[in-house]
């Protein structure tokens, strides 16, 4: 007869409780809202998948989703190569290493809403340092509260400033872990700088780079605070990204059902893209 150690469950219990309260319970609440209609007083009416259909067919959702993909695509296209380039240019040893690392880490330490507020003031046309400089010194007509292009440029630059460091630090960690022996072998072969990058540094950075892209994808796809503080989704709806739109529906219009359905769709997209990307990147790996 096999003896079962029931006391083992007690060791798993804390994790179960934590996960339940951290993820499962809030998630189920959202699921609950997404299939019902409520007018308050804790009275619910069954709606089935109506909210999901409504969201998936709504032009407003399509527009916000399009803006979201455009934003995330631009962020990745700029931050990943830029991060790799900066990591490659950073010194590997000596006095400047800690200086570079701390300088790089600084933007990431600033709270998100502070970043938004900082850039808001920084870019105001008449009193902001950058806004004033562009408008009054260079004579460029720049006002991100009026011009959608300026608004987009500002949120992109702000995110690049805030988060490129993450890519840099991850890539740098990957780079310094490459043994000197590889560089020596390349030197003896007479390999060009490009070959060293292509055949030694890039493959050795692949794993950290995968993580960096995933993190940047998820963070930029779910971004809320910074653009909310900076532009509030405007001018018009030009910078209304998915999360900003979601909050408008949920808290502005108090349409809890559609908002819950949209949350689940939003979550599913994030999950699907992350899973696809990770699977594609690691499909040839043995380990």
């Amino acid at each position, binding site marked *: 007869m096999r003896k079962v150690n029931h006391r083992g469950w007690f060791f798993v219990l804390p994790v179960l409780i934590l996960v339940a309260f951290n993820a499962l319970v809030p998630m189920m609440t959202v699921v609950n809202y997404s299939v019902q209609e409520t007018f308050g007083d804790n009275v619910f009416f069954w709606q089935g998948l109506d909210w999901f259909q409504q969201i998936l067919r709504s032009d407003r959702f399509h527009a916000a989703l399009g803006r979201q993909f455009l934003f995330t695509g631009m962020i990745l296209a700029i931050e990943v190569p830029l991060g790799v380039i900066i990591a490659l240019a950073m010194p590997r040893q000596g006095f400047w290493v800690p200086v570079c690392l701390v300088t790089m880490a600084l933007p990431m330490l600033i709270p998100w809403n502070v970043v938004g507020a900082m850039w808001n003031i920084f870019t105001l046309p008449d009193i902001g340092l950058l806004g004033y400089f562009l408008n009054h010194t260079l004579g460029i007509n720049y006002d991100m509260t009026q011009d959608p292009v300026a608004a987009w440029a500002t949120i992109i630059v702000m995110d690049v400033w805030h988060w490129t460091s993450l890519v840099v630090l991850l890539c740098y960690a990957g780079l310094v872990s490459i*043994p000197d*022996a*590889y560089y*020596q*072998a390349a*030197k*003896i*072969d*007479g*390999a060009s700088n490009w*070959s060293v990058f292509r*055949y*030694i540094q890039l*493959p*050795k950075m692949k794993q950290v780079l995968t993580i960096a892209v995933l993190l940047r994808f998820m963070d930029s796809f779910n971004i809320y605070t910074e653009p909310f503080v900076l532009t509030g989704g405007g001018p018009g709806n030009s910078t209304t990204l998915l999360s900003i739109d979601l909050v408008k529906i949920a808290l502005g219009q108090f349409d809890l059902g559609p908002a819950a359905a949209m949350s689940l769709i939003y979550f599913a997209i994030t999950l699907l893209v992350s899973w696809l990307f990770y699977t594609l990147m690691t499909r040839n790996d*043995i*380990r």
Partner: protein
Amino acid sequence: MALDLQAVTKRVGQITYIKPTSLMLEPGRFNVLLGETGSGKSSLIKLMAGLDRVASGRIVMDGQDVTGMSPQKRNISLVHQFFVNYPQMTVFDNIASPLRVAGMARSEIQGRVEAAADVLQLRPMLKRRPHELSGGQQQRTALARAIAKESTAVFLDEPLANLDYKLREELRDQLPELFAGRGAVVVYATSEPAEALMLGGWTALMSDGQVTQFGPTAEIYRNPNTLTSAKVFSDPPINSAAVVKQGTTARLAGGAEWTLTGKAADLADGSYTVAIRPNYVSPLRLAEGHVAMTGKVLVTELSGSESSAHFAMGDGAWVSLAAGVHPYRVGEDHAFFMDPNRCFYFAPDGALVA
């Protein structure tokens, strides 16, 4: 095609890594650099390969001064302790990579790579990636790259250190044969005296950033020129102790004494250092005239065919290595016998005198 080091040195800031070192390495020979970790083997190899710049001195390869030349132009190969291969390339591409950089014709690359792969039994693995290979196969890929390149000089920096015991033995047996008849200067760095003896060829002993002795391996094993050389080329470590010579009598601090013969008998009276390899110190009196000594056994090790005992005598630590199994008792006194004809005598400055 010889590689000639002329008083090369290597310094970084205030630290000296290589003291003035001269070596004449002939092609077709298997040269071993033997020294402890930190003795400067890798530093010297980096100088020879051109990966580091010499602080002073000249390096002449094949009659041409290559002192300031980049490693790429020196036509050399380096095989590391780590298995260094391009992770994204197949074994074939890895072996071919230096040839491609050199701009060789496709058909010739194919021929050279396949020939090298045959020698190292890598034919079935040519299409695989390094991470799909065992450690031994990865290191063979690195060796194949060196062979396919047909370098003037091949540097092997402890290439077997990260392989397991069986593979190491197998590859070590193949190595000298692998490079024989290729006309390249081969330099093999190792920290194991036994490995140098097994590889044969010539050995340069390194200690503290200097080559202390260079010559045919067996010869320098038999005739160390200094106490340092004797220590480098002995495993377990060679026994050494202060000895006082008076007339034809030598007396150890521990009390043992014996009669000197031959060259040692002609030395001036005074203090010397005597050194004897552990295998000439036995727990059995193997011959008349072997010198009896008593020591307190500290540690014993048994390998099946040999037993070694570390014992304290006087204020020195000694090692005995003898065939067979011997009943030592740790902590108790035991008699040992040393062969006085196998003793080396060194002057106070470390030079061999008899």
